[in-house]
């Protein structure tokens, strides 16, 4: 029953898959913030009576964000395969997974950022405006720094979501822990692999959440 060779083979597979998952999550989280953060800022500041009030832009962006978010990820994944092929040249592997992960996360990030920035009291914006701050200064010196603890929790939530999504992408050949669990755990009935994958995913999510909490607490504490 006990075969050391089999276990070292498994350990290697799990390690490689874990790294692939971390890689996909890190890259897609970063890329989704590059687009999602400005998008969230625009959603907040173009709202009625805000500093860049623009009802048209606000409505259109809102609709797009809602539309993308309302498509279940597993469908979204398949739906954008042609686009993924154009961008990375293939639809399987970790690089290919980053495309749907990022695109699905962008509207999610935008809403998270929007929620964080909306928590900032309007009075603070008003105070900055009274001193002659322009819109960019209000965003860069008031909204974003003030929202930093909440924004960093948002990054953790996004990364955790992407851990889950990356596992789904794994089922259609996206690589990482999802692929491992599906091919070996499910299709080849290797329950050990299935369980190890689950444990690694749980640990990964715990670590990300703890990291986010610690960062938010650190920022808040520095202000106390």
């Amino acid at each position: 029953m006990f075969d050391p060779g089999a276990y070292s083979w498994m350990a290697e597979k799990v390690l490689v898959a874990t790294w692939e998952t971390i890689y996909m999550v890190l890259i897609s989280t970063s890329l989704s913030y590059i687009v999602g953060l400005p998008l969230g800022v625009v959603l907040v500041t173009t709202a009625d009576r805000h500093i860049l009030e623009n009802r048209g832009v606000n409505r259109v962006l809102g609709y797009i964000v809602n539309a993308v978010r309302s498509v279940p990820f597993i469908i979204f994944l398949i739906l954008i395969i042609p686009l993924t092929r154009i961008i990375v040249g293939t639809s399987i592997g970790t690089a290919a997974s980053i495309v749907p992960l990022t695109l699905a996360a962008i509207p999610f990030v935008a809403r998270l950022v929007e929620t964080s920035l909306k928590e900032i009291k309007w009075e603070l914006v008003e105070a900055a405006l009274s001193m002659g701050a322009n819109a960019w200064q209000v965003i860069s010196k008031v909204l974003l720094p003030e929202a930093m603890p909440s924004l960093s929790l948002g990054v953790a939530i996004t990364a955790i979501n992407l851990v889950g999504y990356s596992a789904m992408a794994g089922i259609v050949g996206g690589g990482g822990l999802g692929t491992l669990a599906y091919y070996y755990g499910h299709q080849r009935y290797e329950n050990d692999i299935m369980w190890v994958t689950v444990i690694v995913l749980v640990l990964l999510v715990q670590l990300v959440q703890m990291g986010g909490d610690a960062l938010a607490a650190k920022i808040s504490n520095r202000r106390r």
Partner: protein
Amino acid sequence: MIKINNLTKIYHTPTREIVALEKVDLEVEKGEIFGIIGLSGAGKSTLVRCINMLEKPTEGSVIIDGTDITGLTSRELLSARQKIGMIFQHFNLLSSRTVFGNVAFPLEIAGLTGGKIKDRVGELLDLVGLSDRAGSHPSQLSGGQKQRVGIARALANRPKILLSDEATSALDPQTTGSILELLKDINRRFNLTILMIAHDMNVIKRACDRVAVIDRSRIVEVGKVIDIFSNPQTAVSRNFIGSVIDKEVPEHLLQCSNRQRPGTITRLIGVSFIGDSTGKPLISSMIKKFDVDANILYGNIDHIKDIPFGHLVLELTGEPGQVAGALDYLCGFGLEVEAIDSV
């Protein structure tokens, strides 16, 4: 310094129009502390926000130092705002910045850098007495200290005008006093024009030279604080003053007029005195000059900004001629004398 002409502000909601300000005219002189008092919802917050265009007036003009700020381009408006400081009821300090960083904020906005910012922030913190708290975060400060940071921040770019939006409303009475003293000191030292809105007449009484009373979107009375206190023209003003100076004589005092001798009369009078006359021994000189007894039933002396302002209730007893003479004597000093019905 500030000239407001025919200022109207109407808010449009989907269902109706709300008139926040209606045809407001107001003039604030350079170097004065001007108060605007009104109940919540009277329009005073909107009025003060029209002065730095945080609210865009629907109609009318706001002329500051000769420039109509309602006609500025948005770029010009940003630099105009740097010369109009503002302080707030809830301080509105940035929690992401230290005391130093908060005071540096408007300087960064104005385009100053490194050393210049450091020097100016040092001066300002010195001015408000918080030099030792530069590295603290706002959450580590008391309310009064937070408002001092707010004041330092508002003065950073050497404004021509300081707008105060209920700056002491969230503070206890003692702290309110020290903040008002600081504002008065700054007003004297820099000849800075201060426009202060408040719902508490005590604040106006302690700090302001002139006051406008605003009621239901309109200015109903404007004048020197001392004049409004001594001779209010409207019911709204009388209410505000009543909340500060209690002219009502307690009833049990009115009932003790008893020592009536034959051939004499007793008169109950209220005497109001302002400024110089407060310092003179008018009552004792009156008693020496006329054969009357004066019984002081009630009295108080208060200060409006730095001018003493008092009220006495006297019971004068004597022969009719002597009493009448005494009353004329008091009136001759410019005191306001009124008869009170005894019970």
